[in-house]
Structures are given as C-alpha cells and as structure tokens.
C-alpha cells in the first residue's frame, strides 16, 4: 500500500517542480532542464508561477463555492429524505434503502449524460415547458453553471443520504418519546435530540460529498461543455489538452495541500472522535 499510494503522491510533488511537457517516458532528475530527453530539473517553479494568475484564482474560488454549495445543498435536500426513510419500518424501509442504492448500479457517466436529454435546448424540460405555454424560447441550461450544479448535486445526493439515514436510524426511538413527555414540541425535539445525535452522519455525509467534489471534472466536462472551469477540470485539462504534466501535478498538489489543511484544522478544533 505504501508503494502504491505514498510513492505516487511523492512523485506528484517531484513532477510539479518541473518544466512543462509530457513525460510519458518518466523523468530523470538533473540540475538543468532538457525536456526533449526527459531530463528534468528538480527546482523549476514554472508550473507554480503559471498558477499565480487571475484565471486560476477564479477557478479556485468557483471550486470552493461549488464544494460548499453542493455540500450544503445535499445536506438540506437529503436530511428530510433520510429522516423520512428512517421513520419507515420493515420491508418498506428496505425498499427505500435499496432504491437509494439503485443509482449506484448504473454507470454514473450515463446518468450524468442522461441529464443532457432532459436539460438540452430541445430537451424534455424545454419541450414540456413550451408545450405548456410557459416559455416561448428554450431556457439555456445546458453548458452553463446551472447544468453543472444540477448534475453535481444529483450525483452526490445519495452519498449524503445514506450516512444520514444510518445515523438517524441508530437513534433510540424512546429518546423521542422522552423528549415529548418532557413537553418538547417537534421542532425542539428535532433541534435538541435528533440533530445532535445524527451529527456523526452529517459529518460523514459532508465529507463523502465535499471531498470528491473538489476534484470533480467529469460533470463539468459533460454538462458544462468544457465551459465551466473547476479545479479538477483544470487538472484533467493539464494532463490531456494542455499536455503539461508539471502544471497538472502542481494543481494536484495545491488541491491536496488545501484538503490537508482543512482536515488538520478540523482535527485540531473539533477532534477525531467523529471520524
């Protein structure tokens, strides 16, 4: 595991200090750069100096907004759903849990792609709205931030609902009754009993949603038509279109560094019990 995990991450660090280019034959470390022969200076800040640029700052900001928005959105959309399923009993509960898992059994590329059929200019949504006479010109959703947001929230919602459901379900039902007996209304019971006790689920769900969102590039690429610039999409572009592995590595490093900083801060101020 050490070999297949830690070593690759260290390699990303090394590559990021190189000069731009494609290094599919590996690199040799040297003090001077000779990109043609794959000779690679270890201390070039070329990739990082590229990133100090308005476009990248903007992409970083957009990604941060998307991560926070997606996490909060999934939590708000998913919590009532998880709560509702946890109130069900027996076979019905099993059915709903299986229904929640069913999307995982279809290729997520295909599920994402399917939104194109719905949201496109001549897609189902626009056709229906036009038939109903609500709109006369198609609303432009595809290839904008709207489509990307819908796609991302859609893809991550089950990852939020499942852990929420598990933790709400674990709460001892008699605590609700006790709260009621003590004269608490439903809201008070929710705020003082359900919410605190489902905290592990909330944290687990938020992590499961937030972390993969940081590196998301498939949805921006399909539904954003390569027009919505997010951090993960930049990494993908650096390795494919820009053909600049050093830049891609540098972008990956910054992403990892930010994640580590956030997790370290979390562990320091909140503690590790919830993990």
């Amino acid at each position, binding site marked *: *595991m*050490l070999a*297949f*995990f830690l*070593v*690759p*991450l260290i*390699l*990303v660090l090394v*590559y990021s200090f190189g000069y731009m280019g494609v*290094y599919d*034959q*590996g690199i040799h470390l040297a003090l001077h750069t000779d990109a043609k022969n794959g000779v690679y200076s270890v201390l070039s800040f070329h990739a990082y100096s590229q990133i100090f640029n308005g476009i990248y700052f903007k992409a970083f900001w957009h990604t941060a907004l998307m991560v926070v928005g997606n996490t909060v959105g999934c939590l708000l959309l998913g919590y*009532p*759903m998880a*709560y509702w*399923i946890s*109130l069900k009993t027996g076979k019905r509960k*099993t059915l709903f*849990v299986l*229904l*929640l*898992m*069913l*999307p*995982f*059994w*279809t*290729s997520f*590329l*295909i*599920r*994402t792609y*399917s939104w194109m*059929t719905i949201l*496109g200019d001549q897609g189902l949504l626009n*056709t229906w709205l036009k038939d109903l006479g609500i709109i006369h010109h198609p609303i432009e959703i595809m290839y904008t931030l709207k489509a990307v947001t819908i796609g991302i929230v*859609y893809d991550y*919602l*089950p990852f939020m609902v499942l852990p929420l459901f598990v933790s709400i379900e674990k709460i001892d*039902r008699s605590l609700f009754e006790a709260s009621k*007996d003590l*004269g608490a*209304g439903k809201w*008070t019971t*929710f705020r003082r009993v359900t919410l605190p006790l489902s905290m592990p689920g909330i944290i687990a769900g938020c*992590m499961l949603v937030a*972390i*993969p969102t940081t*590196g998301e590039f*498939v949805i921006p690429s*399909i539904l954003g038509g390569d027009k919505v610039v997010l951090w*993960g999409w930049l*990494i993908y572009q650096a*390795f494919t279109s820009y053909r600049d*592995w050093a830049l891609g*590595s540098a972008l*990956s490093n910054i992403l*990892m560094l930010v*994640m580590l900083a956030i997790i370290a801060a979390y562990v320091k101020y909140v503690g590790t019990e919830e993990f």
Partner: protein
Amino acid sequence: MTETMVPTQASATAPQSPEVPAPQRRERVRFSLWDQIMRASDAGLAVWSIIMFVFLFLPIVVLIIFSFNDQKLNVQWTHFTFRWYTGTGKAMADGGKSIFHDPGIQHAFLTSLEVAVVSTILAVIIGTLGSFALERFEFRTKNIWDGLNYTKIVVAEVVAGVSSLLFFVQANTFLTKYVGFNLWGIFSPGFYTVLIAHVAWNIPFVVVIVRARLKGFDRAIEEAGQDLFARPATVFFRVTLPVIFPGIMAAALLSFTLSFDDFVTTFFVAGPQINTLPLQIWSMVRMGVTPEINAISTLMMAFSSIIVIVLEIKTHISADIA
C-alpha cells in the same frame, strides 16, 4: 422554546397504546412558530422525499425510455423500437448498431467485467487480511497504516488517478533503465496498470467494512472453538469466517461496483491498450451517444437489480453496506 407545552398527539411514529389513557387536554399555550411548522411537516416530509426520489430517478427513467427510441441521437422521442437490443426491425440504415452486434462495446464490457472480478477478489483478500491485522494486533506502525487507509479515501479521485499515472510511468522507466527487468511490462499502461490501480483503490473500502464487522465480533465463540480442540485453521474457517462473511460479501459487492463503474482512475492509467466500458461510454459521450449505450445500461441495471434483490432476500446485505 423548550418550555412551550404542547398537547401530546398520537402520531404515526409513536402510536399510543390502548392502556395509556389519553392525557388531559391542557389549556392552550403559545405554540412556537417552528412547532407549528413541524406539525404540518409530516405530510411535507413525505412529499419532499418523493420529490427527491423523482429527482434521483428521473435521469434513469429517461435513460430506460430512450433505449427504446427509434432515433440515433438521444434528443427527441420518435417511435418505439427494440432495435438497439436486437438489431432487427427497422434496418440500421443510419449506421447505428445494436448491443449484440457491436464488438467494440461487447469487448469493453467483458474487459470491465474481467478487471472488476479480478480486482475485487484481490482487494477483498488483501483488505480482509489487513483488517484482521489492524483490528486484532498491536504493532508499532499501526497508526501510520490506519491513517494511510483513511487518507486514501480522503484524496479526490483525480489526484489518485494522476499520481497513479506518474507512478506507473516512473516505475516502468526505472525498472527498464536501472534494473534491466521490467516485470514483464506490467507497469506500462494497459490491463495490469488498471488492475493494480483498482485493487489499491478498493482495499481501503474493504478494510473499513470488514473492520466494522470484526469490531462487533464476540471473541468468546472463537475461544469456545479452541476449547473444543479445533485447530486455528478450523476455528478460522468454521467460526470466524462465517460470522464476518456478510461483511466480506458487502465489501466485495461495493468493490465490484466501484471497480466496474470506475472512470477517473482508469482514464488516467489505461493508455490506448485497454478499453473498459466507462472509457467506451466516455468516448461515445464526447462523440455523441447512441441509444445503444442506453440499452446496455438498461440491461446492466436490470441484471444488477436482480442480483441485489436476490442477495437482499437471502442475506439482508443492505444492512452491511449501509
């Protein structure tokens, strides 16, 4: 808000048993606004959840419906057809192929299956051994392994994919140039790089699930086995393994799903030699998807739903996954 007294009401969640007399209706006290909203919310909760389920299933339903659409582009509904499944009916004059007549898709499907099965078996074996090590034994580097296991889950997949790519490239060059033996070329992009990446990617998930199962394990039954003069191997196969087996099955199922559907990591490490189904779908999405893909997805979903339902009836596996 806490002091607000609210007349107890029978609700769906806690039906009042007949022995308990209904509490006297107290004098009406001020309801908090939130309490009133929550009171109206039982129905709202159901409606909301159903809307969310519709949201989750809308693309899937559209996907299934359009697999029967008699048009090469997934844009507008025209006629009902089976041609994407059977290849018969209206002649495939527009250049479309059905799933049973397209070697490209079939080959990609079989490759995906192969990678998923082999990587699941390897990941489950290594992950189960690993979870035993982490759960049952104390050793000096335990914290490091434990941390690494979670780090892997915590890193965004694009980073995992990129780092695996760099690793394979560098390892291949290193072995060829400095060792003179490149391990039969397993590190040059292709089947083995995808396989190794999938195994490495899936192990942490197996460890987490199997470990959870081991945590709730009552070691007294193992001791009982030993007391009855069972050899350690017998205890393992007759006592320990059957108890943790549902956990292992759940881990295998998750691992298989992740591997079969994995796009991001595969995309970076695959190279031109290998084509898995997600890679095939990706290239088709870029070029324009035909309902052929809808058809194969529909079949796969039907197939996996049947497996899950059978497993659920036999083993109640959903409890272990969740």
